[in-house]
């Protein structure tokens, strides 16, 4: 082979190799561009979805905070009312009877409630009695203590029933508020209706 032909062959091989590299670069880089465009399209959809999520969840924090504040106020009110009416020990026992184990947690605004040993009210009273007590009927829940009197004592049934009512009735006061007076001589008169005493309306006769 002459030197000129040898140089020409080496140059041709070089050009072929460079061409191969360029073809490989073009193929793979175009493929990467296509994949990146798919990723861009997917990210656009994702951003739109996330923007919707942000927009829809924006008021959630404030609303939930307000709801929690109002519920906290309601819980404080009911707990305070229960403790005021039933007493701390009975209130803790009542709550523990309805929700076993709740006495350990105690009332939120009354830290001393966690130190009270809850009386075993749930073992003495039925669920209905506890429900009445929960509704504020003043059931003698203190008697739920095993050391105290039982509510369902057959010999003292009437006494136990009377204890369900407020103290003013148990003391048997000499005078209680009278029942309202009705009739023409009643101290409180209401406006008379015009249609009372008037002839009755007649429906059209059927054909």
């Amino acid at each position, binding site marked *: 082979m002459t030197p000129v032909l040898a140089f020409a062959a080496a140059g041709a091989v070089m050009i072929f190799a460079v061409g191969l590299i360029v073809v490989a670069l073009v193929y*793979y880089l175009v493929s990467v561009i296509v*994949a990146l465009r798919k*990723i861009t399209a997917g990210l656009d959809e994702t951003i*739109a979805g996330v923007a919707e999520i942000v927009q829809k969840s924006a008021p959630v924090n404030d609303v939930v905070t307000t*709801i929690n504040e*109002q519920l906290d106020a309601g819980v404080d009110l009911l707990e305070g009312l229960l403790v*005021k009416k039933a007493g701390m020990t009975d209130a803790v026992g009542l709550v523990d009877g309805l929700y076993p184990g709740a006495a350990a947690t105690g009332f939120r605004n009354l830290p001393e409630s966690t130190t009270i040993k809850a009386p075993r009210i749930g073992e003495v009273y039925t669920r209905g009695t506890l429900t009445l007590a929960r509704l504020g009927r003043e059931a003698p829940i203190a008697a739920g203590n095993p050391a105290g009197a039982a509510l369902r004592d057959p010999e003292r049934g009437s006494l136990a029933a009377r204890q369900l009512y407020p103290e003013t009735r148990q003391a048997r006061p000499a005078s209680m508020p009278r029942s309202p007076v009705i009739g023409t001589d009643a101290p409180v008169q209401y406006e008379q209706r015009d249609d009372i005493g008037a002839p009755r309306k007649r429906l059209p006769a059927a054909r």
Partner: protein
Amino acid sequence: MILWWIGDVVLLAVVLPVVVYLLRGVLDAAKSIVPSVQQIAKVAAAGSKDLDAAALLLTTQDQVSKTVAGVANYGGSLDVILDDAR
């Protein structure tokens, strides 16, 4: 002359495979991201749809406010009607 042929051989036997290997790795990595991004887009759309009920929280807020007000009135009445614990 010999160096030129050696250069050709190196170009074909070393440089070209390395270039192809590296580009293929980049392409595979890019392609592997596509399904993940598509799944994320689906999840974001589903999450957005799940939050459609968030607007009902305003109704819940109103109802809770009314309920607590009713409980407060009821509790006030009970406080008047019932005697305190001794």
